[in-house]
């Protein structure tokens, strides 16, 4: 566990800084000068934050307030952390298309760079969960599928269904499918608890366990249909529907043919 959190502090930061640097200097030049990234961080960071603030003022402040303090229709973003922004904006949930019950996943409005800038800005307001680095997300190496399955069934399946297909919540809300979601975003959802979802922090589900969950989800996603068409992996309802329509339907079709006289 300690080993991993160390990763998060050091190695995980490297690719992120690289991105920051890329945006900050904005050109091929930055790649060459990346060796000095550590020294320029503070400067780059403040430009990035400023950039993020500009995007925020244009795109987000009308709901979340000029200083992200939140107003009646949208929550405060102070302390939600970069991970939250990366998840909400990176999966296209924010900005919301309309003020319906729930923000839906859609094509992101902002580019990766813009998301990073926004995240940096929100993170600068108050400390919060950070975006996990690539190194920290090596679920193939650090996760266990079987353990992840158990964790998933214990912590996730009640809302997201046994195969991660999503399910209904109260009053029209729903838990979305976790299929086709980037590992980074799955991780961020667990540590930030977006919308109706609760937070699964690193003490009750350790980072390794989170990676196991991701590994299981990815394995379920890649799992071919072992027994034939999957019927949506939602359980007996679609099976019953198919038994009546295709099954009994075909048989009645043959029965009608059987009982008509030949010409």
């Amino acid at each position: 566990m300690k080993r991993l959190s160390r990763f998060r502090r050091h190695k995980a930061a490297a690719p992120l800084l690289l991105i920051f640097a890329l945006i900050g200097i904005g050109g091929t030049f930055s790649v060459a000068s990346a060796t000095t990234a550590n020294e320029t961080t503070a400067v780059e960071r403040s430009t990035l934050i400023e950039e993020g603030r500009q995007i925020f003022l244009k795109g987000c402040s009308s709901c979340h307030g000029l200083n992200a303090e939140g107003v009646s229709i949208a929550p405060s973003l102070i302390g939600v952390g970069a991970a939250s922004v990366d998840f909400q904006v990176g999966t296209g949930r924010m900005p919301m298309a309309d003020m319906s019950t729930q923000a839906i996943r859609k094509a992101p409005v902002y580019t990766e760079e813009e998301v990073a800038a926004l995240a940096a800005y929100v993170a600068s307001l108050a400390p919060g969960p950070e975006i996990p680095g690539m190194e920290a997300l090596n679920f193939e190496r650090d996760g266990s599928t079987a353990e992840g399955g158990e964790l998933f069934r214990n912590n996730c399946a009640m809302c997201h269904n046994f195969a991660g297909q999503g399910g209904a919540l109260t009053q029209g809300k729903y838990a979305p499918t976790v299929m086709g979601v980037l590992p980074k975003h799955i991780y961020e959802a667990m540590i930030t608890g977006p919308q109706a979802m609760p937070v699964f922090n690193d003490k009750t589900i350790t980072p390794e366990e989170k990676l196991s969950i991701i590994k299981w989800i990815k394995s379920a996603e890649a799992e071919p249909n072992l027994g034939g068409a999957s019927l949506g992996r939602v359980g007996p309802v679609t099976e019953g529907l198919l038994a009546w329509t295709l099954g009994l339907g075909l048989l009645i079709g043959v029965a009608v043919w059987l009982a008509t006289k030949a010409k």
Partner: protein
Amino acid sequence: MSNQLEPIKDPGLPAHVHRKTDTDPKAADRAERQVAAMFGISALGTVLLVVSYVFIPDDIFVFIPVMGNQNAHQLGLGMGMAISLFFIGLGAIHWAKTLMPDHEVVMQRHEFRSAEEDRKDFVATVKEGAANSGLGRRSLIKRSLGAALGLSALSPVLLLRDLGPLPGPEQKMTNWKSGTYLVTDPGDRRIKASDLEVGSVAQVMPEFANPKDRHLDDIAKDALLLIRLRPSEFNLDPDRLAMTHEGIIAFSKICSHMGCAVALYEQTTKHLLCPCHQSTFDVTRAAKVIFGPAARPLPQLDITVDGEGYLIARKPFSEPVGPSFWGREK
């Protein structure tokens, strides 16, 4: 009514219409070939089944439109079997329809009741038999026989007694005792109150000296859900509030309706939903039922922390967890 009026006459069975195969030998031969072809396809199906069984390994996948990636072994076996069976049936029916005589036959029915005389005799015999047995007259025999038969039915019931023990106090008890540590499930790690942030949940079990000793019987009663809210968000009686710890509240995860695991916690509304029958519980009001068929709130566990800040149960559950039963409150 119209029944007294003369009904429209029955024109009788329509004349038999000959099939093409009845009149045209060529058509009959064609039908024969069709039937044979169907049986032939069936044989091919069996070949497909054998080939799939012997030669297709079970880790090869083929892409089929609509259905997605399919296991070739399973698909080959199944389709082979389906074809071999289906076409035997198709051939047989086609054979029957086109080549077997299709003259409709009329068979007469007879009313089921026998001739009046026979029936009277029969009824009389039954009555006489009953009278001769004296069942009606000798009421002592009748009653004692009835009692004996009724009592004899008790024996299988009695013999089934050892199917299980009689309900005992364990029915109402869980492994939550005073001072039991709350541990994560899975993982069996103790939890510090400070480990939980606002808005987070944890699936929890009571600590076992050896987690291997925890069986399904235990989980069925012990499963616990831990939720942390802002203390200001609670709307609880003082005694219920005292059972929480700095905004951390613990409920039995076993639904008070039919025992499913209630764990769909919505952070925004602070509602808990049971996915089986959609009973909805309000966490801020001690899991009061606000929707669905459950009639009772989820039992709340009284929790506190030990000297090091680890969460422990202060007291066992004050009521049985899980679905209702007759003597639940006794």
